[in-house]
Each structure stands twice: as C-alpha cells, then as structure tokens.
C-alpha cells in the first residue's frame, strides 16, 4: 500500500505504524511475547479535516492516538507531521514540536493535575514554550478560558471544583494554549453526561472553524463520529480495516466488521428502528497478544472464506479515497449468509 491517503498536503502521514508492548514473565522478567496494540497502520490526515477513528474497547485506537504524539513508545513505522518524522526525532526536537500537536484526554478529572490551579494548568505550556511575561500569560489564559466558555474569574480554582463538562473545557483550553495544528481527541466525550456531550462536541467544531484545527477524533460512539468526522477509519485488533469518507462509510460499508458495527447503531426513528437488522458477531475479540494468522477478523467474520484464514488481506484502495482490508471487498460474491437477526423489541 503506497499512498494510503490522499492529496499531497497531508498534515500527518502515518506509515506502517507498529506499537508492540512486551509481555514479561518469570523471575527474570524475560520477554515471552508481545501485545500488538497497533499493528501496521497507515493513514493520512489532511489539514483542516476531522478523521474519526472508531473501534471497540482494546482495539488500539487510543494507543494509535498517543503514538502519533509520541506519548507511547513506537516499535516501528514512520509518522510525519508537517514533514518532520517524529519517530526518528530525539526527545528534544519532539519537545520543540509539542506546540504543533496536542491531545484532549478521555478522563478530564485524571488528566488535570489536582494540585495546580486552572491558570497554572493552562499557563504552563506558555511558560515552557513562549518566553512571555506573567502579564501576557495571564491575558492569554483569560482569553483561552473565554474561548472555551469558562468564566475567567475561576482561573485560580482547582480542577476538582469544576463539573465534568467544565473540566473537559479546561483540558481543551490547555490543548489550545500553544495554537496547535493537530489535536488528538481521545474519546473526549466518553466520560461526560449525554447532555454535556453535545455541548463539548459543538465547542470542538466551533474551535475547529475558528483556529483551523485538524482533529483525530477517537471514539466508540458511531453516531457522534458521523456528526463530527469528515472521514472515518475503523480499527479492529490493532489494524485499520476500513477507511472512507463519512457518507460513503455509513451508506455503504465495505468491510464485514464495519457492517456489523453500523448495524448496532440504534435508529432515532422508532419506525425504522423496528426494521433494523443487527448482525450479531459470534465469539470474542481475540487477544492482541495472539492475533489470528490470516485476516484479524476471520475468527468472527460471518463471511469468512478459507483464504481469509490463510492470508492477511492488503489494505487496498477500492475507490476514490476508500480503503479496505478485506479479500471479499470489490468482488461481488456475497459469501456465506450473514448472521442477521432482527433487533429484539426490548
């Protein structure tokens, strides 16, 4: 797979990214295996777009997001951000690149240092990267707090004095402090109440327009990704199985796993919800320490054929900016009947 993306103006180019964690055992803690959290993943993110990264728990999407910011140790592969390969860069140059790329974390409580005031949390990167005066820093903190909808008078408070939604706003303000180009949003709304989720997502969209941000939006909420993403990548067991523009993916999924995922999204309209056919996947996700030999999905795929168990499918281009890793994609044979079931009416 050569050009997994798009046009040449990609902000982020990820090629063959692998993040493996060693498994140690025994008295001497010898390495006895490895968890392939991210296994050969390639994609591009172009400037100004939002790439949604979806998948179930443990599929490696968070690790992939962290690896792109060099917050996880990368086993191999390359990640170029604005032309600089951050995998090869030493710690010092990565630190210099930090202002360009930031992250919004899933748990707004745990991701804020409990002993620092909001002003310190937001102001710390400014102190670190811009030799600005205290006065200018305070002004910038006030400005950032207002742009995420926080009251600037609360700057001297501690994180625990805020609600969950407000804490996530602090996390967003913090990420914005250095005018980044790329923000990795690692399930930024998963820990929030449903009523707050919409507010935070709207804020993210508004900020994207205002500051020309590029998002990698990691989520397991397919509905929310449909709302915010321009393109969507579906991950399963450490690999990307399908990557497509949002409308194409939701209208016409090419990978059986994507199909199954989408069939699990409830319909808001009760009439169509009653008609919805769910594809029930049998069995559990295999352990990423012991992935199946062929296609990673072959153990649960309702359409799997012999070839799937033997050979890993290439991640291939099947249409304009559509990629899928499936032997059956493109061929029109339907394969064995999928395990379709109507949704139980409660």
């Amino acid at each position: 797979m050569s050009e997994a993306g798009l046009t040449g103006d990609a902000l982020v180019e990820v090629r063959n990214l692998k993040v493996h964690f060693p498994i140690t055992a025994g008295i001497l803690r010898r390495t006895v295996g490895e968890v392939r959290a991210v296994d050969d993943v390639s994609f591009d993110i172009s400037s100004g777009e939002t790439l949604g990264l979806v998948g179930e728990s443990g599929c490696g999407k968070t690790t992939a997001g962290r690896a792109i910011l060099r917050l996880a140790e990368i086993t191999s592969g390359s990640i170029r951000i604005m032309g600089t390969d951050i995998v090869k860069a030493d710690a010092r140059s990565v630190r210099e690149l930090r202002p360009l790329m930031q992250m919004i974390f899933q748990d707004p409580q745990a991701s804020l240092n409990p002993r620092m005031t909001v002003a310190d949390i937001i102001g710390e990167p400014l102190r670190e990267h811009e030799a600005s005066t205290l006065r200018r820093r305070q002004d910038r903190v006030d400005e950032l707090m207002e742009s995420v909808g926080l009251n600037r008078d609360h700057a001297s408070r501690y994180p625990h004095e805020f609600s969950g939604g407000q804490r996530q706003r602090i996390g967003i303000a913090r990420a914005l402090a250095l005018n980044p180009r790329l923000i990795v949003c690692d399930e930024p709304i998963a820990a929030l109440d449903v009523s707050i989720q919409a507010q935070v997502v709207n804020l993210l969209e508004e900020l994207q327009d205002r500051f020309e941000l590029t998002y990698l939006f990691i989520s397991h909420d397919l509905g929310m990704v449909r709302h915010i993403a321009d393109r969507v990548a579906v991950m399963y067991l450490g690999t990307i199985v399908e990557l497509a523009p949002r409308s194409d993916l939701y209208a016409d999924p090419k990978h059986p796993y994507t199909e199954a995922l989408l069939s699990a999204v409830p319909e808001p309209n009760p009439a169509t919800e009653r008609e919805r056919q769910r594809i029930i996947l049998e069995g559990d996700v295999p352990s990423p320490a012991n992935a199946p030999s062929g296609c990673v999905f072959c153990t649960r795929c309702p359409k799997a054929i012999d070839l799937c168990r033997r050979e890993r499918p290439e991640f291939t281009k099947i249409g304009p900016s559509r990629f899928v890793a499936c032997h059956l994609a493109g061929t029109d044979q339907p394969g064995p009947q999928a395990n379709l079931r109507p949704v139980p009416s409660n």
Partner: protein
Amino acid sequence: MFHYTVRRLLYAIPTLLLISLILFLLLDLAPGDPTAQLPLTIPPDVKERIRASLGLGEPIHIRYLLWLQQFFVNESLHLISELTGWDISGDRQRVISWQTRSPVVDIVIQRLPQTLWVVGLSYVVGIAIALPIGIISAYRQYSWFDQVGTFVSMVGFSVPTFFTGVLLIVIFSVHLGWLPSIYDTTHVVTDWNSFLFQIRQLLMPVFVLALFNAAQISRFMRASMLDNLNLDYVRTARSKGLAERAVILVHVLRNSMIPVVTVIALGVPSVFGGAIITEQIFKVNGLGQLLIIAIEASDIPMVQTLSFIFAILIVLFNLIADVIYGILDPRIRYD
C-alpha cells in the same frame, strides 16, 4: 482549617484524659514493687513505711487524681514560673521520680537533647536517603537500581536494630577499632578534633536507625510515585512539552509527596520517644533509655509521665499530619 484545628484540639482533651487513665490502671495492675530492689536486710515494716511514703497507701482513684493534679496543674504552673520568672507555683508538689527523688519533667528535659540529636538526626538522614531512592526506584521500576533498593529496604525493615547495632559494633569497634561503641553524651564540641569525634560517635547509632527509617519511607515514596506515574495528568504534562525532569519533579513528585509527608509527620513522635533498643545498645542516655530503666525499677511516676508525654505527641502529630494533608491537597477541605 482554623476551626477544624481548634475543634480537633478540644477533642484531644477527653482522648488524652482517657489515655492517662488507661495508662495509670495498666501500670497499677502490672506486677512490680518499687521496694523490690532494696536490700533484704530492711525489715518488712520499714519497707511498708517506705511504700506508704511513696503514696502507695492511698486508694487508686486518689493516686490517679493526685497525679492528674501534679502533672497538669503543678507542672504547668512550674513551667510558667520557670519561663517567666514569676513566682506562681509556690511549694506545689511536682511529679517526683521514685528512683532519683527529683522531678520527672526536669529529668526529661535533661535527656531530651541527646535523643533529639541521635534519633532526630537519624530520622532526617533516613528521609534524605529514602526520598531519592523511592523516586528513582519508581521511575525505573524493576531496573537493577529498583531491585537493589527493594532488597536493601527489605533488609532494613526486617532486620531488628538490636542485630544491626551489635553487628556494627562488632565490626567497626571491636575488629576494626574505627568507631567508639559508646556514645559519650558529656562530650563537648570545642574544636575541629572534638567535632570529628562527635561525628564518629554519631555514625553508628544514626546509621542503624536511619537504615530502618529509610527502609519504610522509601517504600512509601516508591508506591506513591508509582500510583501517580501512570495517571493521565502526567501524560498531559508530557504533551505540554515539558522536560522529563520537570514532569517528574514538578508534577509527579508534588502529588506523590502528599501521603509521604503524612507518614513522615506521623513518625515524628517516635523520634521523641527515642529508640529504646538502639539507645540502650550505644548507651545514649536519652528518653528511650530513661523509660527502660524506669520500667526496670518500677518507677511508676516516671513511666506514667513519659508514656503520657508520648501519647500527647502522637495525638498532636496526628493532627499536624491531617492539617498538612489539607494544605498540600486542595481537594481536601476541613469545615
């Protein structure tokens, strides 16, 4: 915070009174006779009169109330007159040691500096060793440094001081002859040589106790660092582009110190309590040694008063630990 502190201090009064009563009853129930050490040639009726003169003829509640009055009223008044020079204590009866017939509190004040020097210094040294070891062990978990640190703290924690103390004396005093085996409390530092001697005689007792303290505190420090190292806010700090040093020392350490500071504060009363065994081994005539001798001689006023002073310190430092916790951790509020 102020109201909380005052309220806790008020609560401490009934607690301490109860402790003093339990101590008094325990000591009264304990076997032992202050006249047991007297020569057998003294006739029994004379012995009985000696016992009566010590106040042992009175019923227990009278003796307890007398002690309460002597300790809380008379000793306090005496202390105030000592400090201010006003004569308000008069001829009030102070708590008197049965062994020496001199006031218990005066003896305690004489003994305190030796204990604070040896035990206090070992506590400070122990903390100074423990914190860096704990930090590095956690940061490089399972490295050889961590493994060695774990082994040393296990040894320090599990080998009693009466073993390490005697072992050091055998090696450094008996075989090598480098260090004195007895701590000379009358030694006065006047010049460079006497200062060196002071250092040499401090080395062994301080090391023995510091090893024990460092073993405990370094484990706390390591555990607390490990708890914090994997939290998301550390990742946030890294993503801000801070240098690794700043991430560890500013973000992780400051949060990890909260429980460790509490543990350190709670350990301070044991410094005043002296290290009974270590003081005995190195012949430091501090508070711990005073307590041991008083117990052997059935010197009940001394034992009672010393134990009670330790109880006051423990209650006080519990409060101090809680207050420090509240200051360090903004999430904790006392209202």
